[in-house]
C-alpha cells in the first residue's frame, strides 16, 4: 500500500487543515488538529492498522505554528512519513525534533507575514473602502478577499509544496520570496495607512471641522506613544478613551 502521495491526499489534508485549531489548548496546542489533518497521508501510507494508530497517536502530541503555513509543515512531515513507511525515514524521537524545528521556523516567518503584515493591511484596505463607499459592502469584500485569497491559496498549495521540499522546504528560494513579501506588504501598508489618514481628515476632498481633525491627530499621537509598550493593551486604551469622552460629554453644559 505504501507509495507516493498524490493530489487527492494533499487536497484532503488541506481541507482538514481548516480544523487545525478546532481543539487548540494550552497543553498540546494544535496537536489534535495536526493529527486529524495528517490522517489521510497516514491512511495511504500504513496498511497495518496497529502501526497506523501508533503513528496517529504520536502526532496528537504537542505541535504549534502559524496556522496558514502549517500546510507546508504538513506536506514536509507527510514526505517523512512516506520514508518512514518505507523503512528509511526518521524514528519517532527524530520526528518530534523535526516537527518542533519546522513549527518554530514557520511560526517566526508566518507570524510576520500573516499576523503583522497581511492581516493589518487587509483591515486598512477594508476600512478605506468602507470610508470611501459607506453605502456598500465593498469594505467587507475588500478586507475578506485581500486576506482570504492569500491565506486559502497558501493553505491549499502549501501541502504539495511542503511535500516536494521536505523538512528543508524553507531552505531554498521560498524563504527569500516570503521575506521579500513581508517587506513589500509593510511598504504597501504604510501607503494605505497614509491614504486612510488623509481620507479621514478630508473625506471626498471636504476637510472635516478643525475639532474633528484635532481629535484624529490626538488619537494618532496617543496611538504612536502607546504602541511603544505592550501594556495597557490597545483595547484597554480604547475603552479608557471612550469612558473619558463620555464623562467629558456629561460634564459639558448644553
Amino acid at each position, binding site marked *: 500500500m505504501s507509495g507516493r502521495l498524490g493530489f487527492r491526499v494533499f487536497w484532503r489534508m488541506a481541507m482538514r487543515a481548516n480544523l487545525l485549531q478546532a481543539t487548540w489548548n494550552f497543553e498540546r496546542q494544535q496537536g489534535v488538529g495536526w493529527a486529524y489533518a495528517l490522517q489521510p497521508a497516514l491512511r495511504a501510507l500504513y496498511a497495518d*492498522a496497529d502501526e497506523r494508530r501508533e503513528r496517529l497517536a504520536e502526532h496528537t502530541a504537542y505541535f504549534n505554528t502559524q496556522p496558514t503555513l502549517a500546510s507546508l509543515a504538513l506536506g514536509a512531515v507527510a514526505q517523512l512519513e512516506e520514508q518512514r513507511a518505507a523503512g528509511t525515514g526518521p524514528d519517532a524521537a527524530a520526528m518530534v525534533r523535526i516537527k518542533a524545528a519546522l513549527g518554530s521556523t514557520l511560526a517566526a516567518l508566518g507570524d510576520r507575514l500573516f499576523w503583522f503584515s497581511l*492581516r*493589518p493591511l487587509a483591515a486598512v484596505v477594508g476600512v478605506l473602502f468602507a470610508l470611501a463607499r459607506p453605502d456598500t459592502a465593498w469594505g*467587507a469584500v475588500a478586507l475578506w478577499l485581500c486576506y482570504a485569497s492569500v491565506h486559502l491559496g497558501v493553505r491549499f498549495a502549501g501541502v504539495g509544496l511542503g511535500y516536494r521540499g521536505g523538512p528543508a522546504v524553507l531552505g531554498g528560494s521560498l524563504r527569500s520570496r516570503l521575506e521579500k513579501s513581508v517587506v513589500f506588504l509593510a511598504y504597501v501598508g504604510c501607503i494605505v*495607512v497614509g491614504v486612510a489618514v488623509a481620507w479621514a481628515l478630508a473625506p471626498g476632498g471636504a476637510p472635516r471641522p478643525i475639532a474633528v481633525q484635532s*481629535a484624529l491627530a490626538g488619537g494618532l499621537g496617543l496611538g504612536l506613544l502607546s504602541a511603544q509598550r505592550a501594556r495597557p493593551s490597545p483595547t484597554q486604551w480604547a475603552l479608557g478613551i*471612550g469612558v473619558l469622552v463620555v464623562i467629558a460629554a456629561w460634564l459639558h453644559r448644553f
Partner: protein
Amino acid sequence: MIGRVAATALLGGIATLDATPVGQTLLSQPLVTATLLGWLWGDWATALAVGVVLQILAASTLPIGARTPEDYASGGVVGAGVALLLAPHGDLQPWREAAQLVGVLTGLVAAATGVPLIRWQRRRNEGLARWCEAEVRAGRENAPGIANAAGATLSFGVGVAFCALWIAVAALALRGVVENESLRLSRAWTLAQPLWMGFGLAQLLHAFVQRRLTRAGVFAAAMIGAWLTLVMGMP
C-alpha cells in the same frame, strides 16, 4: 425583531468559529460581520459606523503563539448588534450616533470580557486532547475527527450564547440611556470616533513602520500626496 436578534446571535457563533477553530479567513472581523448585520437589519449606516471603528481597533490585536487575544469576533457582532437594536427607525441623527457610541463601547467590553471565556474553552480542550490520544491508542481512529467536532461545537455554542446574552443585557440596560441622553452621547461620538480612528491607525502604522525611517517617509509622502489630491484635485 426576535428573528433578527436570533440571526445576529447565530452570526456571533459563526464568527467565533472562524476566529480560531475553523478556517481563520477573517470572516470574523468586525467590518465583515457588521456589513452582514447592516444587510440583515436594513441599516448600513449604523452597522458600518460601528464596524469601521471596531475593525481599526481589532486589527492590532493579534493571536500570536499561546497568547489569548481579545475576542473581537464576538465583540464585533455584539457592538454592531447593540447599535442596530438601539438605533432609531427614522432619521434622528443624534439618537443614531448615541446608539453607535454605545455599540462601540459595548463591543469593546464584550471583546475584553471574552478573553476568560476563550481561556476556559482552551482548558476544556486539554481534556479533549488527552481523551483523543487514549481513544486512538485503543483503536478508535476517528477520535481526532470527533474531538475536533466537539471543540468546534463548543466554540459555536459559546459564541452564540455569549453574543445573545450581551445583546440582550446591553439593549435592555442601555435603551433608556440612549433615548434620554442622545444629545450628550451624540456629542461624545463626534469626539470619540476620530480619536478611536486615529488611535487605531497609529497602532497599525507602528506595526508597518517598525522604526524604519524609509517606511515612515513613505507613509508621510502617501498621506500628504493623498490629502493634496483629495483637497485640490488631480494635478
